[in-house]
């Protein structure tokens, strides 16, 4: 299951199934008066054919290894989600500090002092955005 070409086909087919099943919950209508479900069902059927075709085709090609670094993408997504949650429940300054300290875990080296400086600079930039450009950032 480490073949990239096979996984690619399966990924696309999975997207098609999700949207295709969703489309059947809406009114399909008929050809001359298409309902809201008609077009997505048509597109996802086509996408499913493409995805399934690729999965079949991969059997005829040399398998290519897939590289996937779960740690880095998890850290980045986690720090984004943390930023949004903290900005919502506390304020955006805490969100920025969290974003910096969490996301740099994915970097080559980690330094608390350096992170403190980055956070301070970014908070200052955020203030400039808020006052200067009129962006409505809930900083505090």
């Amino acid at each position, binding site marked *: 299951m480490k073949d990239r070409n096979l996984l690619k086909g399966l990924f696309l087919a999975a997207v098609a199934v999700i949207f295709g099943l969703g489309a059947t919950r*809406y009114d399909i209508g008929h050809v001359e008066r298409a309902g*809201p479900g008609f077009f997505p069902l048509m597109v996802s059927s086509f996408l499913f054919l*493409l995805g399934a*075709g690729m999965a079949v085709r991969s059997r*005829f090609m040399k398998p290519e290894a897939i590289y996937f670094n779960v740690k880095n993408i998890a850290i*980045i997504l986690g720090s984004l989600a943390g930023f949004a949650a903290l900005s919502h429940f506390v304020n955006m300054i805490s969100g920025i500090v969290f974003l910096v300290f969490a996301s740099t875990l994915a*970097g080559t*080296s980690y330094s608390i002092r*350096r992170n403190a400086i980055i956070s301070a*600079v970014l908070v200052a930039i955020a203030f400039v955005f808020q006052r200067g450009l009129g962006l409505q950032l809930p900083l505090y």
Partner: protein
Amino acid sequence: MDILHNLAFGFGHALTMHNLMFCAIGCVVGTFVGLLPGLGPLATISLLLPLTFSIDTGGALIMLAGIYYGAQYGDSVSAITMKIPHASSIVACIDGYQMTLKGKTGLALFTAGVSSFIGGTVAIVVLAALAPALGEVALKFGPADYTALMLFGFVCVSFVTTGSLLDGLAMCMVGVLLGQIGTDVNSGVARYTMGLPFLMDGVGLVSVALGCFGIAEITKNLDSREERTPFSGKIKLMPTWPEFKRIIPSALRGSVVGSFLGILPGGGPVIAQFAAYAIDRKVSKYKDEIGTGAIEGVAGQAAADEAAARTSFIPLMSIGIPENAVMALMMGAFIIKGIQPGPNMIAQHPDLFWGLVASMWIGNCFLLILNVPLVRYLLSIFKIPYVVLFPAILFFCCVGTYSVNNSLEDVFVTAAFGLMGYVMLRLSLDPAPLMLGFILGPMLEENFRRSLLLSRGSFTVFVTRPISGTLMALIALFVLWQMSVFVRDVRKARQVAPA
């Protein structure tokens, strides 16, 4: 004479203090962000898009265009000085970086700047002459023709950007499906919103672009963990007269090639560069030197790059169909500012249209007089290690997505698309066609449903109308050709290694 009159009218609008300032800011900021590793024009534009929200429409469009060509110039600068390729500057890495190795960085940057200027100037004349005429043709298009044209665009983009028709088409379809999220205009039914109220208006353009291109690219850079040595060479900008003379013929050739390829569906800067470079290798007086750091190797491709970047605005502004992913993003930005690009844009907003055309030329001047000398200062951004840079880029992504609707939910949406973009990158699926599908999806559905309504449910309407019929025939030819190539490859592989 009409062209001159129109251009003069445009310059009248573009040369106000206000618009000049936005043009200059756009160019400089675009170059600066474009220099950053992993941020090509698509990510740069979507990152800076929110900056234009508080500006009036004319200024915002001018600034966006400035950001676009600034970003492209920034890409070629990082390619020339440090051999960091972006999608839009692969060719610049070849001769440009060779020139840097020879200690001629300044000359290479100057050549790229001057050639871009020449390419841009030629392209603007083409744009001013062709766009209004093409707009008149576009008024004859019916919904079936638009549907066929969009499908044709999908096929061309898929083939050009990914090299594999199947992969690209599949990504277009994924984009179209993502564009379905939100309220259906015809029936008012909320589709795929999972009961979440903030999805009623659909997924935000900035969220998709920043997720797929920004977050995913950053993570990919983090995975590779390479530290780049910052550029520390000396830059001597002014060329000698014989060197300067060598720039001109190549740049003119590149301008013509670029202007032409920029108009075609699926065309644009990337393919134009390769074509111009290939032609220079065939016909240039110094063709033997190309590849080892020749001026021609930089001049031709830079001119083609810039010319194609300008003329790719033609289909967007005259027909209303973007021909590649960057133009799709531009179209989204236009719509956010309340302008629907298309045949009526020139008639309804002549000041915006001609002002934008004129500002492109002014933007070229800014690139030349502002950015070329500023390059050595801009390059100092590479002295900052990536571990400091990427939290800052993430922060700008967050602020960018948040300030579109002042909604923190959008940050979650961006994170989700970041995951999707990363998975796609690792599966070697190019997200650029997805962007085009996402923007064109709602339009495609609208035109598709309308043409079936008009034809009372008969699919023959797509084949019997002259315009759509021709386009459909072209698509069929293309698909057949690709299938025959695939079958031949499989046979060849079997003959070499019988299973």
